[in-house]
């Protein structure tokens, strides 16, 4: 009558999923982050915020819920446009005979000025662009920069950490030296140095558009923490029995490093990766604000804050609010999710 023990071991990732669902804060955070990702996906394929750079409203259009607010700037702009009519100089102008021809040409090129609305859902910026659309597009750019840069930094840090921890000896000595060099330069100075070099160097035109300058700066300066963690894990794991067993059946060194050990340290990497995403997004926002980040034809939370500084002085607070709220909600949810992830992955709590 012996009871048959039939317990299929739960895979690590199923366990993670189950724990995350049980953790209420973690589940809500995961939901918010997922919602952001869907929003970004829609923005990328053009279903959302496609026309963020179109001037759809009057300058500094009021938010819809504040429609009655006086908008001096838009009124001023309108006055200027009306004043722009040229006085009649027909009698004195030697070019007067050409007026007819010019009028015809203008007729042919006549552009239709789209009707500009007085209010926008969450207000407009200086050029009458929709702030809500900008915030959505800005989320896409900021989060993409953070995630891509974090992935690059993780790749560098993991590779170097694995080499140093697994092989030890002179490889370890060399990489430790490199680590010391990178960490003894104050982080922000390294960022500025790279920004200066990439702006004025021969590579400047290569990265002039797109997010690559920021990504390179962040990845190049941010890999050190990951390296340290991964190295420590590899030193611990390299002489464990399962690795020795793999060696005994003839697994090559790269195979032991990346097929056997890597999955067993992936939880450390995953948590550190999410911490990097949060840190990198914050730095990207500051760099873009300073004009060292994404190019001017793109919008990110940082460039929005850059415009918002001057707008706030004349009382137009909505762009500041939009960028802050979008950023704060995402980073809070992402940080909470990271905490839950760390708890769910902690083998001691099992």
């Amino acid at each position, binding site marked *: 009558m012996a009871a048959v023990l039939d317990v299929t071991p739960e895979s690590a990732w199923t366990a993670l999923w189950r724990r995350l669902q049980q953790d209420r804060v973690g589940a809500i955070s995961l939901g918010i982050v997922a919602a952001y990702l869907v929003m970004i996906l829609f923005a990328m394929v053009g279903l959302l915020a496609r026309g963020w750079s179109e001037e759809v409203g009057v300058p500094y259009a009021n938010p819809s819920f504040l429609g009655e607010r006086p908008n001096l700037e838009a009124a001023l702009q309108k006055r200027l446009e009306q004043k722009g009519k040229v006085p009649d100089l027909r009698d004195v102008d030697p070019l007067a005979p050409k007026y007819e021809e010019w009028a015809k040409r203008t007729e042919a090129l006549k552009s239709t000025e789209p009707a500009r609305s007085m209010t926008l859902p969450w207000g407009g910026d200086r050029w009458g662009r929709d702030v809500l659309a900008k915030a959505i597009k800005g989320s896409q750019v900021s989060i993409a920069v953070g995630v891509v840069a974090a992935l690059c930094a993780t790749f560098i840090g993991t590779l170097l950490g694995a080499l140093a921890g697994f092989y030890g000896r002179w490889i370890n000595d060399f990489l430790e030296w490199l680590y010391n060099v990178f960490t003894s330069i*104050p982080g922000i100075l390294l960022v500025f140095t790279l920004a200066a070099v990439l702006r004025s160097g021969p590579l400047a035109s290569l990265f002039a558009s797109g997010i690559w300058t920021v990504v390179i700066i962040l990845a190049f300066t941010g890999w050190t923490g990951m390296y340290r963690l991964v190295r420590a894990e590899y030193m611990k794991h390299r002489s464990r029995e399962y690795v020795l067993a793999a060696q005994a059946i003839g697994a090559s060194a790269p195979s032991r490093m990346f097929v056997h050990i890597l999955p067993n340290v992936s939880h450390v990497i995953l948590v550190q990766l999410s911490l990097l995403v949060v840190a990198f997004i914050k730095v990207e926002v500051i760099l873009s604000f300073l004009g060292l980040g994404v190019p001017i034809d793109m919008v990110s939370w940082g460039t929005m804050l850059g415009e918002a500084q001057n707008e706030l002085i004349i009382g137009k607070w909505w762009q500041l609010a939009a960028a802050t709220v979008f950023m704060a909600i995402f980073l*809070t949810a992402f940080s909470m999710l990271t905490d839950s992830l760390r708890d769910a992955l902690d083998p001691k709590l099992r």
Partner: protein
Amino acid sequence: MVPTLAGVVLLIFFLFKLFGGDPAQILAGQIASQEQIDAIRHELGLDQPWYVQLWFFVREILTFDWGKSWMTREQVSSIFLTRLPATLTISIPILLLEAAMAIPTAMVVAYYRGTLLDRTVMAICVAAMSVSFLVYIIVGQYVFGFQLGWFPVQGWSDSFWKNLVTYAPLPILLAALVGLAPQTRLYRSFFLDETKSDYVRTARAKGLSEPAIMRKHVLRNALVPVVTNISLLVPGVFVGSFLLEIFFSVPGLGREIYLAVNRSDYPVIQAVTIYLSVLTMLINLAADVLYTFVDPRIQLR
């Protein structure tokens, strides 16, 4: 430390050499004849092989003679001496104020661990950390400087006391408040680590009150990692907060290097980066030596 220092010098040299722009082009500007460019190249030694240039670079570092800034013609060494006081006037009070606020807050939160108060404060901390530093500065400057007029919006004077009393308080307060959230979170974890240890259980077993345990036992032991963390922040004092300096137009080192990046002023960037790295190394070394006095369990190898 010497190999690390050599690495820093090599890294900076080759970053600028391989990826930086041609200094002669930057110096000569857009409209320059080939002769002018060649003359500048010769003057800067750019027509020499790279190892000779590296030697020039090392010589500049050792003799503190970096020549003049490319754009403002100011001596690079004098940039250091004139900008550092402003940076320190802001950053040292920030460091002290942050620690003075974060340690008691963390201790109180750790004392009430697991309660609603603890969780509320921690949630506020996470939310506060998710708002960009920029937003705090923009809104703080607008509200306290522009709207309420409690502080000047920006500015700086030649007198140290006037700076400290008039111009520095707003940036200092803003930075200290922003630094409060992450530091409270970190120090709370240090306190919590100690509350789980054996000596706390012993103290509780012999009937000591919870506040007494917290004050006499936990605080003293938790101060070791706290002091470690603060000593890690000390090198940052010299770099200062470039954002604060830019916003409040404080003529400090951080703002100077930001301006240098914008005008591709390579000597200033190189000099600031290298000397501040050396300073960072020296401070860390000093901190390591100090530990052996603070905590007898630690030994230098």
